[in-house]
């Protein structure tokens, strides 16, 4: 293998690096055209750029990052937005001055068109296209940057695969360990395919294309989780991941059907004809028409569909269809983002190599669900958003509690990922679009950092079990301190109201919005407290992890002795990511330094905010009011939420210090004190067992029933029909002779004899039984005479 395998790594890394460079260029173009923060471009000429500068450059580059596999038929790129001066100005002013609701009527900038028609049947088209707005640009940069880091890292981490590998986790039937060829090249092949698919989701111009790439990232994830195909646990985890994702996809398909059946298009922005005119309004336009000031309304198509269905109240049923569509799409996101109740696959997915965990199962793919919720945000009714919030809330709490007891370092991180994804969903659900997206970005950085640090540790000590580590800080300082940065970022460490790590900004925004939501919907106020409590738990388990791994005395001297700092190709990416984990969300503006909203990232995201989602709006079916996100920037709310977040995180951190650093509290005692809860958490709330009982076994049982029904019932019937027929036809003559002619006499004789024998049994010779017979006979005759004869 050797050189050629290494070549695969170079090619893949080079490609993704190129992708990053192009994304960066695209971002620069974007900023050039539309500005980072509108507030810094106060002159109208600059904002006029949006129209004047033909954005082909950014366009083609963005498409190139798709590794240019799709033939772009020279798309005519035009901003949909009528970005005339007035709009742009109010847009700018709105963000810069951070005034509430000012941007509600502005139209966000988005470029979209179709490249390629996959299936075109008359009016109905399934296409491959693009939809580019600020969110897309930011996501592109984030994904390619992290992917580049991880590719570099993987070149170091996977070097064993360059030569023949002995897999110590697989024991053959002859007792030896498996010896196989290295699969370095295949790893990078899958990684590249994954990056392609992931970018495809981000750039997708319609929900069907999203679905296509959705499935593709699913299959890449399947390959990567099951990378060690010889390990039974790995292939099982891969199957589990794919199948659980498919469960979510069913919901997504249902959502697609609901959209397709009534609206007849999947396109986000709209379908264009050759001249670039929109011939069919996109989903967003249909749900939030520009003329209506982007207010959510039931699209015409759904009401029509409801009428066709014979609904008594088409408006109501149409709205229901919209809810179904939203919920369906969200189902897909639940599967992909491993939200409750489809979260079971993600921890198992840690069977894959650690770079995979870092890239696929923490930073990007699982975030695709959150991204889709963000992308599809205009379509969600408040009812759906409420459900999203509830699901997110459950997930963040549940996963956090499980993470407390896990001992596998990657699993702790996996559950922490779940929990953080829950935060994102929760943020989106309570109306915090920017908060959720911001957390998506920041989380991607610090979580991939954490995973890569854990990979570095695993690489050094060859175990995943934290109880076998300890004191590694001295052996591998870079890893330890970058990981510390990651931990601080994830718990949202920072000085309240002044400055903090990236997580500080995103988490504060989420909690502020949650508090804001709770203030508007008293019934759901509890979710804020759950989220705040989750922050404490997060701090606790993250530092439990860090202390157990890096602090104290080595628990296994042997492993400690062999530990070493990772090579440069591995720690360099750590440093890069650590840098971003600290600074990515920080305000760049010195004047506004303490204002979180002044961060360029936040400003960029604000640009990508879906039209019409920044205002208060309330539900039709459920009594819920989605508060305007800007309301959460209110000093009172924001300060309260920030202090609560700080306090909870600090308490969790202190508890972790007490238990694992200062050793004031013995964890074992705590464990035994809460033995039932501990068992409950250790067994992951018994979800696997539960699903096994209520889904897998019945399904297999039903499958066996179906197969058995085929053999036992249908085939049996057929076979016997055939036997009967054959018997009937072939032996018909003989049968007649034997049965009717010869047989009759024999039959009578035999039957007489039989009857005699049978009657003999009645003659027991017992006097008393005879008496009983007489009695029975008498009664029977009487009854016969009474009821039988006298009719």
């Amino acid at each position: 293998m050797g050189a050629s395998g290494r070549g695969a790594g170079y090619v893949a890394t080079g490609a993704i690096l190129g992708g990053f460079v192009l994304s960066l260029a695209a971002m620069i173009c974007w900023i050039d055209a539309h500005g980072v923060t509108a507030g810094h471009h106060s002159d109208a000429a600059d904002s006029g750029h949006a129209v004047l500068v033909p954005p082909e450059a950014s366009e083609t580059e963005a498409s190139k990052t798709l590794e240019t596999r799709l033939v772009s038929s020279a798309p005519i790129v035009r901003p949909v937005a009528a970005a005339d001066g007035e709009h742009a100005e109010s847009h700018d002013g709105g963000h810069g001055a951070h005034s509430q609701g000012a941007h509600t009527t502005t139209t966000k900038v988005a470029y979209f068109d179709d490249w390629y028609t996959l299936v075109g049947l008359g009016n109905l088209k399934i296409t491959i296209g693009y939809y580019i707005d600020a969110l897309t640009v930011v996501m592109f940069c984030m994904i390619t940057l992290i992917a580049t880091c991880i590719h570099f890292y993987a070149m170091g981490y996977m070097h064993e695969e360059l030569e023949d590998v002995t897999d110590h986790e697989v024991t053959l039937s002859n007792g030896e360990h498996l010896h196989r060829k290295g699969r370095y090249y295949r790893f990078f092949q899958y990684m590249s395919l994954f990056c392609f698919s992931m970018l495809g989701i981000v750039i997708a111009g319609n929900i069907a294309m999203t679905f296509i790439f959705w499935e593709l990232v699913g299959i890449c994830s399947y390959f990567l989780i099951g990378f060690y195909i010889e390990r039974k646990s790995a292939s099982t985890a891969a199957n589990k991941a794919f199948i659980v994702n498919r469960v979510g996809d069913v919901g997504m398909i249902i959502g697609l059907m609901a959209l397709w059946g009534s609206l007849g298009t999947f396109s986000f922005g709209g379908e264009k004809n050759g001249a670039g005119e929109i011939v069919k309004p996109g989903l967003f336009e249909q749900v939030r028409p520009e003329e209506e000031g982007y207010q959510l309304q039931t699209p015409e198509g759904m009401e029509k569909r409801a009428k066709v269905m014979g609904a008594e109240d088409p408006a109501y049923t149409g709205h229901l269809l919209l809810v179904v569509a939203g919920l369906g799409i969200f189902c897909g996101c639940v599967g992909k983002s491993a939200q409750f109740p489809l979260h079971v696959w993600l921890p198992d997915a840690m069977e894959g190599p650690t770079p995979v965990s870092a890239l696929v199962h923490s930073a990007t793919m699982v975030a695709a669900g959150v991204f889709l919720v963000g992308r599809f945000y205009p379509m969600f009714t408040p009812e759906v958003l409420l459900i999203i919030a509830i699901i997110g809330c459950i997930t963040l709490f549940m996963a956090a509690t499980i993470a407390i007891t896990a001992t596998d370092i990657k699993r702790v991180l996996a559950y922490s990922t779940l929990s953080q994804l829950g935060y994102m969903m929760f943020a989106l659900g309570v109306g915090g679009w920017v908060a959720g997206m911001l957390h998506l970005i920041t989380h991607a950085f610090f979580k991939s950092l954490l995973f890569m640090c854990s990979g570095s540790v695993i690489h050094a000590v060859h175990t995943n079990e934290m109880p076998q580590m300890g004191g590694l800080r001295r052996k591998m300082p870079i890893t330890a301190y970058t990981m510390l940065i990651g931990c601080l970022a994830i718990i949202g460490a920072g000085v309240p109201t002044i400055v903090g790590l990236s997580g500080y900004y995103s988490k504060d925004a989420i909690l502020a919005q949650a508090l804001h939501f709770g203030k508007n919907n008293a019934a759901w106020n509890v979710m804020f407290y759950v989220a705040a409590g989750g922050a404490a738990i997060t701090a606790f388990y993250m530092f439990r992890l860090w202390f157990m791994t890096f602090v104290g005395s080595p628990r296994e001297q042997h492993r400690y002795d062999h530990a070493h700092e990772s090579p440069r190709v591995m720690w360099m990416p750590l440093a890069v990511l650590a840098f971003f984990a600290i600074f990515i969300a920080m305000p760049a503006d010195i004047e506004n330094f303490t204002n979180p909203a002044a961060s360029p990232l936040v400003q960029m995201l604000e640009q990508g905010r879906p039209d019409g989602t920044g205002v208060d709006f309330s539900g039709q079916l459920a009594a819920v009011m989605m508060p305007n996100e800007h309301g959460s920037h209110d000093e009172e709310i924001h300060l309260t939420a920030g202090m609560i977040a700080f306090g909870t995180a600090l308490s969790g951190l202190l508890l972790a210090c007490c238990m694992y650093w200062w050793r004031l509290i013995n964890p074992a005692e705590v464990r035994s004190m809460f033995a039932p809860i501990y068992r409950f958490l250790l067994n992951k709330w018994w979800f696997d067992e539960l699903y096994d009982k209520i889904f897998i076994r019945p399904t297999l049982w039903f499958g066996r029933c179906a197969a058995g029904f085929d053999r036992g019932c249908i085939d049996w019937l057929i076979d016997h029909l055939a036997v009967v027929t054959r018997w009937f036809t072939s032996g018909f003559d003989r049968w007649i002779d034997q049965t009717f002619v010869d047989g009759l006499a024999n039959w009578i004789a035999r039957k007489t004899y039989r009857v005699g024998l049978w009657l003999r049994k009645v003659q027991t010779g017992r006097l008393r039984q005879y008496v009983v017979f007489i009695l029975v006979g008498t009664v029977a005759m009487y009854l016969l005479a009474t009821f039988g004869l006298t009719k």
Partner: protein
Amino acid sequence: MESINWHTLLFLLFGALTCFFALAVVFSANIVRMASYLILALATTAGLHFLAGADFVGAMQLVLYVGGTLVVLIFGVMLTARSPFVSLRTAGGDWVLAALIGGTLLVILLPVAFQIGLPPTDTDGTFSDETGGGRIASSVPVTVPTATRIGLGFLGVPGDDFSGYLLAFEIISIHLLVVLVGAAYLARAKRRTTVKNGDVSGGS
């Protein structure tokens, strides 16, 4: 308030006693007690016969049944009353079966008793002049001796409410004779076969 009808009271007494003893026969396990209850049951039946105006039959019941047949039976009891046979237990299943069938029969018979005992309807013209119909007897029964008329009947002289029974009477007489001879023959001791069959029974 009417006065108590003593005829009814006596009937109820005797009827209840009869039923009670009959059931006692069924439910007692000991053969000697069964015999005693049977005597009492038959005796009270005789009382019922008297109350129904059948004085001769009642007397014969007492003389022949209670005095004759029962003595024969008790004789048999005493002859065979070795301890294992005094109380032979019946299996529970048999009880259940018997109770089931007996109950069914009773359920059938009792409605019949009510049906038959009830007077024909008034629309039945032949009976409309009678007071109370079939069920209601006169409150004070008039006892008419029946022995003479029965004797006449047996001698073949038909009366206004009975036929002649000379032939039947003769047949019965012959029958009794034959029975007595047969009984004597059957019951005589047969030493030889006893030993042989005793072996068989011992073996089984």
